[in-house]
């Protein structure tokens, strides 16, 4: 009898290990669907396409303010500057459009992507820099909003309406994705928050008067012009978030943020891109 009990226990333990292994390898699509259903349960009235508005989706007044500002956004001058940069030929005589896939149009939703040859995540900004270097220019500093930020703000408008389409294929890609996921869910900083503390568990909840946005839909609307004119890229925002939780922040363009952006963007797969947008 004792022997049978022991055997059963061992079999159960084995099953547990197996199930643990299965859930650890559940993969990006399962992760995304789990979050989508978590929010669907939490916010039954919110439509999937509304998630692109982030916190605005929970606040009709703020949303209507957004709509009126977006009719004539105060940051159009920056986009014009970016457009000029985009159209200026590089040293080789070629333009960015010549160098990037599909003339640079409707491609932003494919980034970040995992580059198997280089064994790392490549963001859209990296692709722009690759283009610059291949055509005789120095790379821009990834976190510099006067150069890369401005050019990227215009370039991303060429992908408006494209659906986010991040792919995680192969061992290296999965490893980078898992690294980004770990950064997202790991508590950090003096205040001991993870990204998920606020943007999964407390999404839709007010911290003081500010509504916390859900992670699904966050990655499709960058850059944002905060307060109307402060260009803020997604990775600028990562820096801000880390500072908010009193963590030593990483720098835009580093592997940690790129992997985080890879995971983060995947969670918005299927949602429409929109650049640039106003945020308060």
């Amino acid at each position, binding site marked *: 009898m004792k022997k049978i009990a022991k055997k059963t226990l061992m079999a159960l333990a084995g099953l547990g290990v197996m199930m643990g292994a299965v859930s650890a390898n559940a993969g990006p699509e399962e992760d995304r669907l789990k979050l989508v259903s978590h929010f669907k349960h939490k916010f039954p009235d919110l439509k999937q396409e509304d998630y692109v508005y982030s916190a605005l989706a929970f606040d009709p007044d703020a949303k209507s303010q957004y709509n009126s500002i977006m009719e004539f956004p105060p940051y159009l001058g920056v986009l014009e500057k970016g457009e000029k940069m985009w159209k200026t030929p590089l040293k080789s005589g070629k333009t960015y459009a010549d160098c990037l896939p599909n003339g640079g149009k409707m491609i932003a939703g494919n980034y970040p992507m995992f580059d198997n040859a280089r064994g790392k995540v490549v963001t859209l900004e990296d692709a722009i820099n690759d283009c610059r270097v291949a055509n005789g220019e120095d790379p821009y500093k990834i976190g510099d909003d006067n150069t890369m930020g401005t050019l990227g703000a215009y370039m991303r408008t060429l992908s408006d309406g494209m659906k986010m389409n991040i792919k995680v294929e192969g061992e290296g890609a999965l490893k980078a994705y898992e690294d980004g996921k770990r950064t997202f869910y790991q508590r950090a900083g*003096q*205040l*001991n928050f993870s990204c998920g*503390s606020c943007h999964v568990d*407390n999404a839709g*909840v007010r*911290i*003081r*008067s500010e509504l916390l946005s859900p992670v699904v839909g966050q990655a499709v609307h960058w850059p944002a012009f905060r307060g109307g004119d402060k260009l803020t890229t997604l990775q600028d925002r990562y820096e801000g978030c880390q500072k908010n939780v009193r963590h030593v922040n990483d720098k835009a363009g580093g592997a940690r943020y790129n992997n985080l952006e890879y995971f983060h963007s995947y969670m918005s797969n299927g949602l429409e891109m929109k650049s640039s947008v106003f945020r308060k």
Partner: protein
Amino acid sequence: MRKRASIITGVLATLLAASAFAAETGKDIAFNRSKGNCLACHAMPTLPDAEQPGESGPPLIAMQARFPDKAVLRAKIWDATASNPQSFMPPMGKHQVLTEGEIDKVVEFLYGL
């Protein structure tokens, strides 16, 4: 002359700052956004000046009834994750967000709510 005046101003400013620091109440610490920042997540329904509170944590009310043992309340503030690993509350003491003395003052303040 001007130099002496500026020295006197400097000394006065330091004294004022020091006395303001010494006089910092539990409520000051609780309300201060770079200290306790309790209102980020908790309402204080009995205080009319506790404006625009957040809603992530439970309202701070009837604290004596809810925490007959003051040490339990203090332990929650020091590190809420010790009794509830899922808690979002920053470990105010464990991570030295507040000093031990500041936590004592906040506990006294909360006990009056």
